[in-house]
């Protein structure tokens, strides 16, 4: 366990000393600034939060901005996850380290833990900052902020686990690109699925359901959106909103959450197997 924590701390240190953290900070600041501007415009146009439309606008824009953050978190960790494992194997940094009395599984677990902490920390800081902005500008506070942030962190963890699995087998850049590509693909499949739902076309809706099972990032993201938006929204808006990619009508089921956890554990286990067999 001490080895795992040592490696996790090393991974966090790598994240903070490489330029990743600074570029993340800049991106986040830009997004926060833009959203603060946008929300103050909404506030000016609707003049307070009495109207239901303002709630829809506020929820949608909040979700949109949070999607931006989840994208940044996903991109950032996926591109950290690749180099940190296969980059070290390629450069030779792994050689001296792996000949210490440690197991490869411990190294993998440590890296995973460090990356998850990194992603969760980012999501929390950026998310809370965003909530404060929404509160100040349009006086809106999401109903389940903690659940939402946990789900976002879970989404980040799922994606970076996939990135780690790829990076045990393919090159650092490729693993980052493939992970992010799949993330985007499931998101689009999710949108397609909700269009199918709206049109009452079950086979199109199936696309979203299946892709959400194969890679749970989109499902978790939908759950997170659901906990950020106003519950009164459902009643007010009625049908026609379902196809919006930035509003989610159903909260997550426990079964799906368990599946997401099992999925992540499976992928991590596969990564451990693949890393164990790899020639350094």
């Amino acid at each position, binding site marked *: 366990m*001490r*080895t795992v924590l*040592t490696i996790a701390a*090393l991974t966090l*240190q*790598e994240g903070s*000393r*490489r330029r990743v953290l600074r570029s993340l900070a800049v991106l986040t600041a830009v997004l926060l600034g833009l959203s603060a501007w946008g929300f103050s415009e909404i506030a000016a146009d609707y003049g307070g939060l009495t109207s239901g439309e303002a709630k829809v606008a506020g929820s949608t824009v909040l979700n949109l901005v949070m999607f931006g953050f989840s994208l940044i978190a996903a991109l950032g960790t996926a591109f950290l996850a690749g180099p940190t494992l296969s980059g070290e194997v390629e*450069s*030779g*940094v792994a*050689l*001296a*380290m*792996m*000949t*210490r*009395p*440690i*197991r490869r599984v411990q190294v993998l677990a440590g890296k995973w833990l460090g990356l998850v902490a990194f992603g969760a920390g980012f999501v929390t800081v950026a998310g809370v900052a965003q909530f404060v902005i929404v509160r100040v500008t349009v006086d809106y506070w999401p109903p389940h902020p903690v659940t939402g942030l946990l789900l976002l962190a879970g989404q980040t963890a799922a994606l970076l686990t996939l990135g780690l699995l790829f990076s045990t087998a393919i090159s650092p850049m490729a693993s980052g690109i493939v992970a992010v590509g799949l993330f985007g693909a499931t998101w689009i499949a999710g949108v397609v699925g909700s269009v199918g739902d709206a049109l009452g076309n079950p086979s199109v809706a199936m696309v979203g359901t299946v892709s959400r099972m194969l890679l749970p990032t989109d499902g978790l993201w939908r759950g997170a959106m659901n906990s950020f938006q106003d519950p009164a929204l459902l009643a007010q808006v009625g049908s026609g909103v379902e196809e919006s990619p930035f509003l989610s009508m159903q909260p997550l089921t426990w079964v799906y959450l368990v599946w997401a956890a099992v999925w992540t554990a499976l992928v991590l286990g596969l990564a451990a197997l693949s890393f164990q*067999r790899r*020639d*350094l």
Partner: protein
Amino acid sequence: MGQVIDSPAVWASNLRKRYKRRTAVDGVSFTVGRGEVLGLLGPNGAGKTSVIKMMLGLVRPDAGEVMLLGRPNTDPRSRQRVGYLPELFRYQPWLSADEVLRLHVRLAGVKVSGEDRRETLALVGLADRAGDRVGGFSKGMQQRLGLAVALVAGPDLVVLDEPTSALDPLGRADVRDLLLSLKDRGVAVLLNSHLIGEVERVCDRVMILDHGRVAASGTLAELLGRRSLRLHLTHVTPEAAALLEPCEREGDRYTIALPDDVPALVAGLVKLGVGVHAVEPARVSLEERLLDILREHP
């Protein structure tokens, strides 16, 4: 516990490795005794680095077994007291030299004071760069840091894969002294090097690999045991030349395997009218021996 101490530093049996269709290592067995210095020689691509990597568990062998310091190498604890300098030496560029050592000490699970870490860095000539980021180090400095990493946790076995490939002449001399001091302290060393002088100076035993097989191995005395005789001769007639066969000739200098009766040979040469200017015993150098062995082994 006693059995653990008595066991050799390295015991490797019948190691094999194929990469795709190319056989890199083909049935290599060897031991390194406690406190012994074994030199690993051989041409490029002979499989030296592959053998070392399989030994340390970095590469999975297709067949064969390894024991390190009394434990099978599948057990991570077998590497508790092993130091390794890889052929490709790279360390976390975002850490300082001292932080790299601290990381390795922690992973090794031992306690080493800051004072001792500084001393190890001083030993490899990096005392004044302890706080600098490794990313800014020159190649030779990174190799020196690699030596420090291999030595910092108080190892009983040190594995060095071409430890002087990036070092300046002074650094090479330092490494030679370092190896001799390890030998004095009873630390076992596996040294892979293309610098034969280095190997000849410090190694107790030598193993020569070629095409993934052990072409020869033994103590220096065993390998170089074939003594020879060097003669400086003029007016060598064909009959006299026949007396000298087989020989190596460079101008007037002839080198032959040491005959049983040197005076009889000299008398025979003189009788044939050969001018004998000098007769001296010689020993083949490790380099000549290595080249001989590699030529015999197509």
